[in-house]
């Protein structure tokens, strides 16, 4: 029963990340909240890109400044660096994909929490707060180190206090930063998923026939794991899975692994889908048939 409990726990954890998001057509899109790790990764990518852009910009300005021998270049540099740093996030998130390059890479995007349109003011608000979240801990460190007047403990307290603000997203279910909270936004998963071929219609799928009892041992979770293995096309994994299934249903090794797995997958899927049409959803092998 422990395996069953673990399975159920895993499903519950997945369900905890899903938020209801009903479109005007009445379909729940089931948005998934992006994890803190993805958010941090996106931020890191964006920071690196900004630094690279600044460096390129600096080289251009340096060249222009040396060529023209005027200090207009310095002004342009100051202004450009400020604009780039402040409006990088705002500019990208106002686009139709509502994501910076870092976010796109991680497959996440910004969404208005109330399901409405993501407005420009919300994007501005969430990104101006970022300024604070990123730089307050650094400032606390800098201020403490620069002026020797504060003791180590005061500095530590300051850094800890500012970190609770910066790491606010770890302390709530919806993974909202301070900026998200104030702008009324969420960051959710928005990956692309390619439409893979329908492996259930493959010609090899009808090569073998399984009895009802042989198909009754597995549920939806196992079916989708099998699908993953079949789409992965890794011979070692297929051999392992095929052996496990053969042992479970008590069949001898008589045919190629992929033929066996494909036929089993196809018939198991047909059986479970038929049950689904009658309103019976068997989540995994531990659930009653």
């Amino acid at each position, binding site marked *: 029963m422990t395996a069953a409990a673990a399975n159920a726990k895993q499903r519950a954890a997945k369900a905890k990340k899903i938020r209801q998001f009903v*479109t005007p*057509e009445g*379909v729940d899109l*089931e948005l998934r909240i992006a994890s803190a790790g993805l958010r941090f990764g996106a931020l890191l990518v964006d920071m690196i890109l900004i630094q690279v852009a600044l460096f390129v910009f600096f080289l251009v300005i340096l060249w222009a400044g040396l060529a023209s021998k005027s*200090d*207009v270049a*310095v*002004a342009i540099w*100051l*202004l450009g660096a*400020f604009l780039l740093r*402040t409006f990088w996030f705002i500019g990208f998130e106002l686009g*139709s994909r*509502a994501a910076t390059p870092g976010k796109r890479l991680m497959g996440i*995007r910004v*969404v208005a*929490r109330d399901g409405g*349109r993501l*407005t*420009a*003011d*919300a*994007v*501005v*608000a*969430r990104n*101006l*707060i970022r*300024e*604070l979240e990123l730089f307050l801990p650094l400032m606390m460190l800098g201020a403490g180190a620069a002026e020797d007047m504060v003791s180590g403990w005061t500095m530590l307290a300051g850094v800890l206090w500012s970190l609770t603000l910066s790491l606010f997203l770890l302390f709530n279910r919806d993974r909202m930063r*301070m900026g998200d*909270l*104030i*702008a*009324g936004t969420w960051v959710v998963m*928005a*990956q*692309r*998923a*390619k*439409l*893979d071929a*329908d492996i*259930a*219609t493959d010609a090899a799928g*009808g090569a073998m*026939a399984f*009895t*009802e009892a042989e198909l009754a041992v597995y549920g*939806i979770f196992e079916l*989708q794991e099998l*699908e993953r293995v079949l*789409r992965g096309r890794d011979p070692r994994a297929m051999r392992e899975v095929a052996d496990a299934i053969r042992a479970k249903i008590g069949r001898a090794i008589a045919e190629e692994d992929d033929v066996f797995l494909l036929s089993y997958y196809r*018939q198991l899927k*047909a*059986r479970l*889908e*038929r049950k*689904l*049409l009658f309103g019976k959803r068997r989540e995994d092998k531990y659930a009653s048939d």
Partner: protein
Amino acid sequence: MIPPAAPARTIDTPSFSASRFRAEREADWIAFDLLLAKLEKKGATALTSDELLQLPLLYRATLSSLSIARATSLDKALLDHLEALSIRGYFLVYGVRESRWNRLRRFFLYDWPAAVRSVWKETLIIALVILLGALTSYSLVSGNPEWYFNFVDEEMSGGRDPRATAEFLQTTLGHGKAAAEKGESGLHVFATYLFTHNSQVSILSFALGFAFGVPTMMLEYYQGIGLGAMMAVFSAKGLGFDFGGWLFIHGTTELFAAALSGAAGLRIGTAVVFPGARGRLQAASEAGRTAGKVMVGVIIMLFAAGLLEGFGRQLITDTMLRYAIGALMLLFWLGYYYIPRREDVT
């Protein structure tokens, strides 16, 4: 008893199958995917009118497919694809309703002044806090010049402290020979530096607002303190009027912007503490959106202030003219923000 027939054949050919469903609808999904890719890359203007008409139809077809697939299919790859496609489609179909140009126009004509008008109470409070800071330090420094060193950093003041002579102080205001010799070079660098520095302080004072507005008020009070201390130093040497002009030319814009950024922060702080009938989260997000609009305005104002400070103040040395420009700017901002307009009614 039903005799156990050959199982494979009966399983193989049900009247409804997920595979048949997919074969029937797949063309729609692919068409929708292509249309979305085009929309994302080139924008709505790149679509022909035929494609535009197709967009909502394909979107609804995809959503309906998603509903059916969830109820009937166990193909994970198919479900994932339909879900991702629907989410992408939803945000594109419902996301953009306005061109960027229209958005910009509405912001300058209506949204910006309306947002500033709606935080008028907070603006008044912050203005009073700045004034209070200035008065505090002014009275303290006038009474005992030693106080000055508690308020203003050595580096920041650049020699403008109670020990300085009246002549030196006058040169810092852009009068006299020394100022003329310094010339005009480096003005734009100075202006840009001022702009970026002030913007960052304003963003900070706005962003600190959520902590119940207390740090915001402290920051604004501190701004007032520096101002009052300087004022006291200059007026003690009889240069109060000239210093006023030196400050006024850009100060009306800059201090107004500082007050607005503080007000935006305070709006968020008060919304969190006193959400009223709304939920705390909702109140915060509503306040945040208003404050966001104000903040874009503040950055634009600070840009204007930076130009006035960097160029205007260095090139115009006549005190009366400085006062005139400062007053004009103040009138412009007040008129722009607070004159009621027709859209207010709707």
